[in-house]
């Protein structure tokens, strides 16, 4: 057929169902899914699916690109719908055996539609390409092609994996790494949310590994269930490696509150932590108000005692020879509240094994821990058998308050002198059951609330791990930079996740589609746009990606535990 043949052009037209770039500049390599037909920036766009794209392939949360006239728009599919050109089709649908009719009607008289939310736009001018994608300020023109995003699109939006970009997972529909910008990640407080059993601790472990490997921040992990430091069991019963096994001891150290439990697992802690009674302040007791079932008057009584005895208040108050009646007279405290406070402190706090009468007796475990953090070593603090909330909250609060003081001082010194005194390194504190620390009441008065709200300036941020984000104070939630959310079923929790996120309504549908295992939606500061991900597996391949020292930790542990047993025989 010659070039001048009148039918040549027609031939091209007939294939237009597959690919028809509207603009000559746009290189549409991916198959076209449909055409934008209407919508708005606020409410999102609506695209009619082509006859050959099945609605069943259009999963909510899918990452698509719209090739507009001048811009590429990166979007998420937020809804899928079946439509028909006339009600007659719906009233008289072709029966299942009418295969041909069904084939013809599907995609023409009856068709699929997708709702799309633009998340980013990128001008096709080369200069703009370098600046990277920006939040959308307009919508693509009518009938722009919607195409499935390809690897190149993911790279243009999320960037490539490198020393500071950590692969957290892959999109559902393709094998391309989606990376987290780690320096941006540690800059603000972050949250890992999800109901129990959805893989929060695996996700947290991955994030911690990424941060440790890149060295963008030092981690302090309050490890309630002793699952981050050394090997622990996954939900399926397999043993997975802890951070201490994946990184050398010059990088990660494990402290414990319960040396017995650590020893039972034939691992040797790098340090032991005790808390002196005089380190416990009224703030700590106030935080435990619920756990101790104290009424507000009792907390007031505690303040009065602290005024009276200064830092020794718990020691004095709980001493055997304490004359409560006399104390009531002197301080004007409410007698019954004070008695209750005393009773509960004795029952729940002074009886804790790791609580010593004073700091000197508690020795310098805590100082050593902080020194390690200052040197940039990552610290996992295991709680061993003290896995109840009360000791966890108590210890986390006491230690964090101390860190807060030191970091604040350092930053202030750095600012005042302006002579090159280095600021303290970025520190990320991981806490579990975060809603207990950051509920509206606690957030107002505890150190964690302060950190979440303003410690970004002092280089301390939180990684909160929680299954009940709705329990967290709104103000704190809105300060959370990056949210990585596994499946949540409670409406209130879902609501909470999107506190302070614009255009959240569309994402709610996406969140609802997450699998209960190994899927999460990531949104916020460390990623350019929200995206549901299949979380990367925490397995041998991942271990070996971390570096040479992770190569054969099994051997190293065996060697270490043998030495340990020789040094500390079990019957000692």
């Amino acid at each position, binding site marked *: 057929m010659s070039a*001048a*043949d*009148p*039918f040549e*052009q*027609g*031939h091209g*037209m*007939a294939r237009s169902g597959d690919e028809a770039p509207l603009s000559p500049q746009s290189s549409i390599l991916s198959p076209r899914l449909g055409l934008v037909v209407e919508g708005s920036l606020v409410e999102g766009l609506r695209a009619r699916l082509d*006859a050959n794209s099945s609605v069943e392939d259009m999963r909510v949360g899918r990452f698509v690109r719209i090739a507009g006239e001048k811009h590429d728009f990166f979007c998420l599919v937020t809804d899928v719908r079946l439509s028909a*050109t*006339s009600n*007659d*089709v719906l009233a*008289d649908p072709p029966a299942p055996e*009418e295969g*041909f*009719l069904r*084939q*013809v*009607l599907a*995609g*023409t*008289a009856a068709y699929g539609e997708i709702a799309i939310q633009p998340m980013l736009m990128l001008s096709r001018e080369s200069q703009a390409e370098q600046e990277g994608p920006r939040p959308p300020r307009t919508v693509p023109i009518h009938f722009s092609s919607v195409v499935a995003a390809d690897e190149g699109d993911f790279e243009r939006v999320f960037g490539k994996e490198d020393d500071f970009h950590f692969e957290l997972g892959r999109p559902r529909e393709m094998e391309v790494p989606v990376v987290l910008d780690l320096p941006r990640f540690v800059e603000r407080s972050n949250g890992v949310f999800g109901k129990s059993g959805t893989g929060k601790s695996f996700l947290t472990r991955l994030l911690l590994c990424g941060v440790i490997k890149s060295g963008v921040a030092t981690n302090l992990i309050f490890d309630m269930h002793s699952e981050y430091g050394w090997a622990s069991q996954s939900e399926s019963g397999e043993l997975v490696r802890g951070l201490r096994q994946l990184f050398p001891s010059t990088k990660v150290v494990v402290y414990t509150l319960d040396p017995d439990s650590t020893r039972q697992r034939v691992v040797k802690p790098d340090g032991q932590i005790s808390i002196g009674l005089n380190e416990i302040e009224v703030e700590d007791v106030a935080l435990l108000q619920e756990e101790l079932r104290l009424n507000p008057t009792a907390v007031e009584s505690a303040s009065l005692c602290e005024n009276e005895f200064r830092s020794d208040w718990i020691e004095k108050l709980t001493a055997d020879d304490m004359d409560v009646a006399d104390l009531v007279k002197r301080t004007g405290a409410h007698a019954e509240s004070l008695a209750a406070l005393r009773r509960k402190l004795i029952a729940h706090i002074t009886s804790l094994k790791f609580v010593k009468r004073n700091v000197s007796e508690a020795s310098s475990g805590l100082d050593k821990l902080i020194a390690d953090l200052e040197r940039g070593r990552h610290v996992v603090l295991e709680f061993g058998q003290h896995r109840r909330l009360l000791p966890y909250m108590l210890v986390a609060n006491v230690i964090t308050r101390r860190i807060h003081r030191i970091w604040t001082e350092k930053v202030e010194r750095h600012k005042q002198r302006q002579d090159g005194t280095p600021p303290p390194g970025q520190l990320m504190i991981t806490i579990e059951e975060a809603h207990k620390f950051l509920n509206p009441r606690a957030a107002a008065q505890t150190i964690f609330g302060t950190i979440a709200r303003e410690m970004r300036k002092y280089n301390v941020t939180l990684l909160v791990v929680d299954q009940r984000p709705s329990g967290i104070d709104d103000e704190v939630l809105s300060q959370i930079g990056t949210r990585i959310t596994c499946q949540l079923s409670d409406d209130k929790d879902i609501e909470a996740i999107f506190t302070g996120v614009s255009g959240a309504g569309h994402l709610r549908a996406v969140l609802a589609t997450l699998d209960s295992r190994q899927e999460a939606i990531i949104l916020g500061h460390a990623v350019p746009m929200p995206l549901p991900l299949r979380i990367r597996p925490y397995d041998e391949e991942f271990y070996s990606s971390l570096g040479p020292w992770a190569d054969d930790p099994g051997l190293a542990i065996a060697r270490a535990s043998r030495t340990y047993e020789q040094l500390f025989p079990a019957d000692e």
Partner: protein
Amino acid sequence: MSEPIGEIVETAVAEFTAQAYQFGQSPPFGSFVKVELPDWTAYGLVYAIRSGGVEPGLRPVVRGRDGVRDAAIYAENPDLEQVLRTEFTALTIGFQEDAELRTFLPPQPPPLHWSVHVCSDDEVVRLSEQLEYFRTVLAAAQIPADALLAANIRLARLARAGEPDFTLRAGRELATLLKRDYARLNGILRGLRTGD
């Protein structure tokens, strides 16, 4: 160039009627025909075929009698083919001009007495690449448009053996054109299906 099948005896922009050179030898209902002129070629779809007496107003009379029926009548009356004629009418669906196929009506009708040819398979393939002529057919008044399209699609399918999904593509084109008339669409589609 193939032998012409007929000659135009009545012409208009939207349709032309030709008398077949051989009595009873009309192109089939729904087939593509063309009229080749020096500067352009008209294309049409045969939508009506009629046979009758050569003299207008003179009706054929019954010729059959005992033992002589059907084909035997023609065998006994060799002159019949001289006094009877077959005419067919084609709906103009487009024309080719300056090496380009245009799917709208030509500025002038094809002239009287020009030859009408049946399109070859190759031409059918090329004409049915783009199905815009469906719109012209559906819009034409007082012709059996639905049956015509179904017949045309069935014929085109035979020529387009290389495109197994042609019927589906044609069906989808119809569905797009008839989105407001589901009953009519359904009728045509059912006509296509039974050909399978």
